């Protein structure tokens, strides 16, 4: 349209020119009107195995419905950035998007960016998965993928050293000590401050602590600090060099290169670890075991890491609702499972074809975590990004001192106060 307006402003006296111009305008208008007739939606996906799977499957949807789906794929933090900027400036044309419930749902809900999903059948989802999708009595997102913390280990190295798989922290430390050598790190887990918060959570739970209790920060409790000290000691003594700048994207290549004997992280990475195009370790040498128990039992996190939602600002809500039903369908969930993606739907785990194909370690650890796990892996609050950085400072101090820091208590106390003031700023202090 803009083109036509600009062109029509220019006075063209000659008749020839005029008729040519009319032709151009006609052509442009025709193209525009044809474009308007085609139904379109804009979908933002994450660079996540399920996002990739959807992207590959979308042509089927387009063919079946005639709706054109404009897909954009972004790295997870850039996805949050993009959604936030578009929604906050009220300029968004996003219809459907992938979203991280624990990271952004509270904030998105508060700002009114999610469209409530009143017409969706949630009967196939576990209750704790729906907890994080629901605000008040309405659901705002469809749980897609669940993750829980597991212990990845090298079967061959364990066999060679005559070790059995550790079932508690004491055994974990002994195994790490025995497997650690100049060439291979005995143990790895995320050390990069904020990124480590999620994987540390299971350690904190198993020591009997937690990040937030009744809407107040409590990660300076003795239990939580014991966990942070243990985590720091393990990484300082048996972790790869430079661990305080490492998240999963740095540890995975080391594991794939055979430089790590044990690794605690999210279950979602199994598919990539054993991918023969990326890994030098044959799949039969990679084991998955339950996260080891701590002094207070074993309650690892199991969370909905990804969900899918409709944007409140969407102008194509009917199309968006139809798309989200397809994108979160049983059929696609099964396809996800067969691609080693751990889906949230109950039925996906019961499917016999899936159970025959998927790694038994994945099924066993999922069953354990679903039964005993805790549905949070980070402080669940609006200002979670900043809170993770603050907890991250305590983690890094612990790693840098091998868990022996004399000022860990006072540092943690300061950070607890800082997280509490964040909770106060957002009206969430003491609210649960």
């Amino acid at each position, binding site marked *: 349209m803009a083109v036509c307006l600009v062109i029509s402003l220019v006075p063209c006296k000659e008749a020839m020119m005029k008729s040519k111009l009319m032709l151009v305008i006609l052509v442009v208008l025709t193209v525009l009107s044809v474009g308007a007739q085609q139904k379109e939606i804009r979908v933002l996906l994450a660079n996540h195995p399920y996002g990739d799977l959807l992207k590959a499957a979308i042509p089927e949807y387009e063919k079946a419905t005639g709706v054109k789906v404009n897909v954009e794929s972004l790295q997870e*933090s850039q996805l949050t950035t993009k959604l936030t900027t578009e929604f906050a400036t009220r300029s968004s044309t996003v219809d459907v998007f992938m979203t991280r419930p624990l990271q952004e749902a509270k904030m998105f809900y508060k700002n009114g960016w999610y469209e409530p999903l009143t017409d969706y059948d949630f009967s196939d989802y576990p209750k704790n998965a729906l907890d994080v999708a629901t605000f008040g009595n309405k659901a705002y997102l469809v749980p897609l993928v669940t993750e829980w913390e597991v212990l990845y280990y090298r079967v061959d190295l364990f066999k060679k050293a005559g070790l059995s798989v550790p079932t508690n922290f004491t055994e974990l430390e002994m195994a790490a000590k025995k497997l650690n050598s100049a060439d291979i790190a005995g143990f790895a887990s995320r050390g990069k401050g904020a990124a480590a918060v999620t994987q540390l959570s299971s350690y904190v739970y198993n020591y009997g602590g937690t990040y937030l209790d009744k809407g107040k920060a409590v990660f300076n409790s003795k239990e939580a600090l014991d966990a942070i000290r243990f985590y720091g000691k393990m990484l300082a003594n048996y972790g790869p060099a430079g661990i*305080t700048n490492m998240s999963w994207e740095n540890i995975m290549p080391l594991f794939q290169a055979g430089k790590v004997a044990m690794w605690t992280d999210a279950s979602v990475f199994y598919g990539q670890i054993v991918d023969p195009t990326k890994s030098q370790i044959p799949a039969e040498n990679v084991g998955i075991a339950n996260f080891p128990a701590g002094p207070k039992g074993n309650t690892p996190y199991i969370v909905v890491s990804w969900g899918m939602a409709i944007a409140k600002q969407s102008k194509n809500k009917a199309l968006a609702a139809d798309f989200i039903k397809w994108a979160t369908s049983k059929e696609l969930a099964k396809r996800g499972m067969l691609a080693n993606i751990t889906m949230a739907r109950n039925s996906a785990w019961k499917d016999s074809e899936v159970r025959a194909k998927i790694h038994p370690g994945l099924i066993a650890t999922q069953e354990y975590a679903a039964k005993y796990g805790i549905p949070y892996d980070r402080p669940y609050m609006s200002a979670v990004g900043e809170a993770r950085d603050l907890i991250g400072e305590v983690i890094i101090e612990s790693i840098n001192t091998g868990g022996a820091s004399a000022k860990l208590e006072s540092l943690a106390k300061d950070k607890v106060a800082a997280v509490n003031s964040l909770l106060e700023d957002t009206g969430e202090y003491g609210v649960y």
Partner: protein
Amino acid sequence: MAIKRPKGSFLEKNLHIIFPLPAVVFVIVMMLFPVLYTLFLSFTNWNLTSGMPLSIVFLKSYQKVLREPRFIAALGRTFSFTALAVAVETILGMIVALILNREFRGKGFTKLIMLLPLVSTPVAIGIVFNLFYDPTIGLANFVLIRFGLPRQAWTGSAATVIPSLAIVDIWQWTPMIALILLSGLASLSSEPYESARVDGASEWQIFWRITLPMVTPTLLTALILRTIDALKTFDIIYAMTGGGPGYASETLNVMAFKYSFEYFRMGQASVILVFLFMLVLFMSLLIVRMRKSLEL
């Protein structure tokens, strides 16, 4: 003009407005507006995590942010990173320019190769250097060990992260300084050199007393460009460390990014950006001043 246009045509009358209009509109929309809007935001408490609409708090955000130890530390890091990177780039750039100013075989090819870092995408550079620096499987430590030197943590330790990042910046931007200086050197007349040689000056004296003073205006131009750019460095740092370990490589720009897109404190992030803007402006003015006083 060969064809006479009718007088009084709208276009004809307003050519002086219409022709520069796209540029003016571009500057207003893409440059002036964002700066003014950021300035406006810096006086508000806009915070997306609270879910509240923004309200104007005047200097409150300034008081809060400018006093924070994390801000002071980031400011210091911005300077130390810039000083380290630009100083090494200038010295190395000068050496490279002096070498390239001589005739030798393969000079054109060398110049071409030198352009490559300049045209590479910073994020891609960051990813490649991250692999290079990896303490366990990276090439950097492999080379160090081969030469019997101790392993380094590179970007993995608070003590070495800033120099490690500066090395990447130096790798990328030394060629630019060298090329600018080379153009300065090429334009120097040969007369002073000839008379100096007749008088028996050493090569060192020639460089110190003749080349350097004559190339100083060009050198300062290169310095201004690089300093402004280095103060604003974001892409390499964000791609390689995200400001870590902890906050050990967090410069003002990285901090502002985290404040806006990870903490969603838009008002306070704007304070940091306004401060950075003033800082860059002040530094540029200072160098321009210096340049003028040297030319007098």
